[in-house]
C-alpha cells in the first residue's frame, strides 16, 4: 500500500512539473510572439472572440500533443528524471514556438495577427493557425520519439522536418485550385479547410517518413527520402482514383468566381480529398509488411 501511495504522489508531482512547464511556455510564447503579449497575460474571454480562442488554444493543444511524448524514467532517481524532463521540455517547447513562428511567417506572411484576429475576427485565419500548430506539434513529437533523448538529433530532425513541411506548403498551390491568400483575406472557411486537410495529410506522411529507427544517419536519411518519394508517387494516384471513383465535379470557378457557399463546399471537398488520400497513402507506404515474401533483404 505504501508503494501505491508513493507512486500516486510521484504522479501528482510530475503533473505539477508539467504544469510548471506550461507556465514557462506562457512566457516563452510572449517572447517569440510579442504581438500577442496582451492576449496571453490578460484574462481571456472565450465568448468575446471565437477566432482568438481558436488561435490561442491551438497553441495549447499543440504543446499538449508535444508534451505527451515525454517520459519519466525513475531508474536513476527522481532528480535525474526531473532534470531530463526539464531539459527536454525547455528545448522542445522552444523549438515548437520557433516552428510556429517560422511556418506562420511563410504561410501567412502578408497577414497580421492584430488585423485578422483582433479586428476582423477572421475564423479562416484562426483555422489555418490551428492547423499549423497541431501539425507542427505532431511532427515535433515524432522527432522527439525518433531522436531518442538526444537533443542534437532532435535539432537536426526538427530542421529536416521543417524543410519538408516548407516544401509541402510550397506544393499546396500545385494541388489546390483555390486562391488561398485571396480567399483567406475574404475570411473564407473553405480555403482554410482545404489547407487544413492538405497540411494535416502531409504531416501524416512526413511523420510516417521520419518515424524510423535512427541508428545510422546516412542510412536513415536515405530511408526517409525513399519513403517520401514513395508518398509522392502514391498520393496523386489515390487522389486521382478518389476523384474518378466518386465522380466529383472538380471544376472550380471556371467561368466566374464561386459564391462563398460554393467556395466552402469546394474547400471541404479538397480538404477531405487531401486528407483521405494522405491517410490511404500511409497504408501503402507504412503498413505493407512483406515478411518472408522477399526472403532476401
Amino acid at each position, binding site marked *: 500500500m505504501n508503494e501505491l501511495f508513493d507512486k500516486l504522489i510521484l504522479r501528482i508531482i510530475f503533473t505539477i512539473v508539467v504544469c510548471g512547464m506550461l507556465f514557462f511556455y506562457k512566457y516563452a510564447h510572449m517572447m517569440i510572439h510579442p504581438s500577442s503579449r496582451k492576449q496571453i497575460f490578460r484574462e481571456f474571454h472565450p465568448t468575446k472572440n471565437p477566432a482568438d480562442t481558436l488561435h490561442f488554444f491551438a497553441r495549447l493543444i499543440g504543446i499538449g500533443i508535444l508534451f505527451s511524448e515525454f517520459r519519466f524514467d525513475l531508474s536513476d532517481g527522481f532528480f535525474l528524471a526531473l532534470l531530463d524532463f526539464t531539459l527536454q521540455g525547455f528545448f522542445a517547447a522552444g523549438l515548437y514556438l520557433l516552428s510556429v513562428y517560422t511556418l506562420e511567417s511563410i504561410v501567412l506572411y502578408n497577414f497580421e495577427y492584430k488585423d485578422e484576429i483582433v479586428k476582423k475576427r477572421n475564423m479562416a485565419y484562426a483555422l489555418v493557425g490551428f492547423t499549423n500548430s497541431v501539425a507542427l506539434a505532431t511532427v515535433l513529437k515524432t522527432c522527439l520519439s525518433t531522436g531518442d533523448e538526444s537533443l542534437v538529433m532532435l535539432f537536426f530532425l526538427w530542421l529536416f522536418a521543417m524543410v519538408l513541411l516548407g516544401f509541402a506548403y510550397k506544393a499546396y498551390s500545385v494541388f489546390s485550385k483555390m486562391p488561398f491568400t485571396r480567399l483567406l483575406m475574404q475570411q473564407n472557411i473553405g480555403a482554410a479547410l482545404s489547407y487544413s486537410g492538405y497540411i494535416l495529410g502531409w504531416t501524416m506522411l512526413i511523420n510516417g517518413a521520419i518515424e524510423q529507427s535512427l541508428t545510422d544517419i546516412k542510412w536513415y536519411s536515405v530511408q526517409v*527520402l525513399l519513403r517520401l518519394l514513395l508518398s509522392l508517387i502514391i498520393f496523386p494516384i489515390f487522389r486521382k482514383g478518389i476523384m474518378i471513383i466518386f465522380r466529383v465535379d472538380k471544376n472550380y470557378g471556371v467561368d466566374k468566381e464561386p459564391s462563398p457557399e460554393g467556395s466552402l463546399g469546394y474547400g471541404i471537398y479538397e480538404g477531405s480529398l487531401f486528407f483521405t488520400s494522405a491517410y490511404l497513402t500511409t497504408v501503402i507506404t507504412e503498413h505493407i509488411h512483406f515478411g518472408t515474401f522477399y*526472403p*532476401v533483404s
Partner: protein
Amino acid sequence: MNRLSLFTLLVLVYLGLSKSFSPSERSTPYLVNEQVFSSFFQGAPLSVILTDRLQTGFLIKTYFLELRLVQGFKLPETILVRTSKGFWEKNKTNLGMSLFRRDEKDGSSSVVAQPPGAIFLGDPSYGNWELAPSGEREWHFYNAYKYFPDYLGWGDYRPTETFTRELKLHLTNAETYYGDQNQFGTTGSVTSKVFKNREYKMIDTDVDFKSHMKKFFKLKTSSSEGAP
C-alpha cells in the same frame, strides 16, 4: 503532360535510389550462368553445391540460388546469388548437385552438374576405398575430413566404385550424372533425404490455408492485471 512527366521522373528517381541502396542488390552477386563461375569462385580444390533455389517477387521475379562452397582446407561457406531465369530453370533438377568444381592438381574446372564431391572421390589424399557388407568397395574419407559427407550432402550414403567410375566417365564426356540408382538431383533418394528441411519457405505451396483462417475466429481470454 507536365504532371505526367514529373510523375514518371519521380518513379524513376525512386527506383534508381532504391536500387542503389537496396541491401539485396548489394549483398547478393549476380551470376548470369555457369560460364562466370570460374572467374567468380576462387581457390582449389573446390566444389560448389546447389543447396536451395528460390524465386521472389509478384510479377517481376528475382531468381536466387543458394550455393555451398566446399573447399579442401576451409570450413564450407554458404552464399546466395541472383541468377537469370534460364539458369534457374536449368537447375530445377539439380538440387544437391555440384554445379562447379575445380581440381587442385591441374587447376582444371568443370561446370557440368555432377553429384557433389567428384573431385575428392578416388583421391588418396582425402580418403580410401573400404569393403562394404554388400561386397562393393565404398569411399570413406580420412578422419581429418570426417565431416565432408555432411558438407557434400551425402548423409549416410557412401559412393561405391561403380558409382565413381560412371561419374568420372560422365565428367569426361561433360554429361550430367545423377547416380547409378538416381541418388542425387532434386528427386534423388539421397538428396531428398538430406535436403528435406529447406531454409526458404515456398510461398503458395507451404501455406496451410485452414490454420491461416483460424486467426479470424480466435477468442482472447481475459487475464488479471495489477494496479498501474
